């Protein structure tokens, strides 16, 4: 896929950081507001796909190799499973929320009822949100990038 006109490139360059910040906000506030790792990752991957469509696949694959993306996705999956296995070790069962109630990271317990949102709550859930977010960003963007690059090289051969 070749690059588009200068107007499209400028507008997508301006709106790309806003989309990325919105997606990262959804991921990092996943335990307070609606959303989570999967939804925020889908938003960030949509922004990256917009950059891919605007700038063309050859420029994008020069900036971000697909090998690095699959490495990032594997890191997210390993972090997710490792957090679950830590629950098996520190608590009693698989997927145990071992950080809640402790003085370590994300350990505060909110009082019951509707309270003011405190980001230092949630136990292991924000860490799992980050792991799943990295995994979904890398996975969905890798699919679009690899498909666009393969179709563009086939187009050039014709």
């Amino acid at each position, binding site marked *: 896929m070749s690059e588009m006109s200068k107007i499209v490139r400028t507008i997508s360059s301006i709106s790309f950081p806003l989309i990325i910040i919105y997606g990262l906000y959804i991921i990092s506030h996943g335990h307070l507001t609606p959303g989570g790792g999967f939804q925020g990752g889908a938003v960030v991957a949509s922004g990256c796909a917009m950059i891919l469509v605007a700038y063309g696949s050859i420029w994008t694959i020069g900036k971000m190799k697909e090998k690095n993306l699959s490495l990032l996705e594997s890191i997210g999956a390993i972090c997710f499973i490792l957090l679950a296995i830590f629950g098996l070790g520190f608590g009693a069962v698989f997927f145990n929320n071992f950080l*809640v*109630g402790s003085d370590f990271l994300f350990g505060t317990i909110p009082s019951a009822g509707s309270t003011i949102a405190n980001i230092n*709550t949630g136990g292991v859930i924000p860490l799992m949100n980050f792991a799943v977010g990295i995994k979904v960003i890398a996975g969905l963007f890798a699919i679009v990038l*690899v498909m666009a690059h393969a179709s563009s090289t086939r187009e050039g051969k014709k």
Partner: protein
Amino acid sequence: MSKRNFAAVVFFLVIAVFFFFSALMMHPFGVPEKADMDDEIIKGVQIETGTNNGVTSVVFDYRGFDTLGEATILFTAVAGVIMVFRRLKQ
């Protein structure tokens, strides 16, 4: 009418009848079915998991195995797509 069109019409009528009866037996709008698990989760979600967002705590804590399966499905799909298109690129 060919045999294939006849089969399509019969299938469509059967599905339509099923949808009609399920629409007759639906709950009124905004009144969900009574379930004990909902009350348990809504009562204990802030003390047990420490989150204010109940949906995320159900997805990542109470039903963690489902999220693990979903992550596995996404990983397998990405691996399959990359494998197919890397072969096609050369």
